[in-house]
């Protein structure tokens, strides 16, 4: 029997762009995204790419995106009963690891 990860709904459409990177939208509006880290944790970001929290599980990260200020104005939200315990959100702006992903092709030098 297949097992599925319980996930919050809140009227949010979630899409996988690549493994570990998920984008949420509600009623056609971009809400934010969840990005899995190399340590297996998840960072949640709002529509302005401000980090709203660091979580051990994807469900809690998704709830944080759906419940982020601004997102809440679009529709009533609720905390998922399936949300995992989470660590406090950091106020530090998130920077991606500066690895070899940096692309070429910048139009400006």
């Amino acid at each position: 029997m297949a097992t599925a990860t319980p996930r919050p709904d809140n009227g949010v459409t979630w899409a996988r762009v690549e493994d570990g990177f998920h984008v949420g939208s509600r009623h056609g509006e971009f809400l934010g995204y969840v990005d899995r880290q190399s340590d297996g944790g998840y960072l949640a970001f709002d529509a302005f790419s401000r980090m709203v929290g660091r979580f051990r599980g994807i469900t809690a990260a998704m709830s944080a995106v759906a419940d982020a200020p601004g997102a809440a104005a679009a529709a009533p939200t609720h905390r998922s009963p399936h949300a995992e315990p989470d660590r406090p959100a950091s106020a530090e702006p998130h920077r991606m690891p500066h690895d070899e992903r940096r692309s070429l092709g910048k139009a400006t030098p």
Partner: protein
Amino acid sequence: MTDDTLQTVVYSSTATQPFGPDDLRELLRTSRSYNADAGLTGMLLYRGGRFIQVLEGTASEVQGLVEKIRGDRRHTAMRVLLREPIDERRFADWTMGYEPIGVPAGDAPEGFRDTFDDLEADDPSAVARAVRELTVWFRVRSQGVPETPPA
């Protein structure tokens, strides 16, 4: 007659031969050079033998490049997924941005849509949402954090 309206076009196509790193590097080199001269910006994805490209610029320049790409023997099954006017460029800093993207190990988890499936759907709203999702992904991967939310 030229059309100076700012426009974006997103298309998909299939590589006629597998593209290795050297092939991609050469494709990006020529495309960036052409785009810089033509005032075009955008991004390119290559995933599982398929290209997804976002082009931005004046309608005349974008259409000119679309016709050029149609005749490029390195692509086949080219399909325009989205064509719409835009108020401002979403890839203004990129003559042709590129980030490697992995092919997922399996289907999207239950309850999740797959961006690449939506991209080729017949539903214009799903296509537009998928393009926005890819734009978010690209900005995160290339710059760390986008400065402004995508339109």
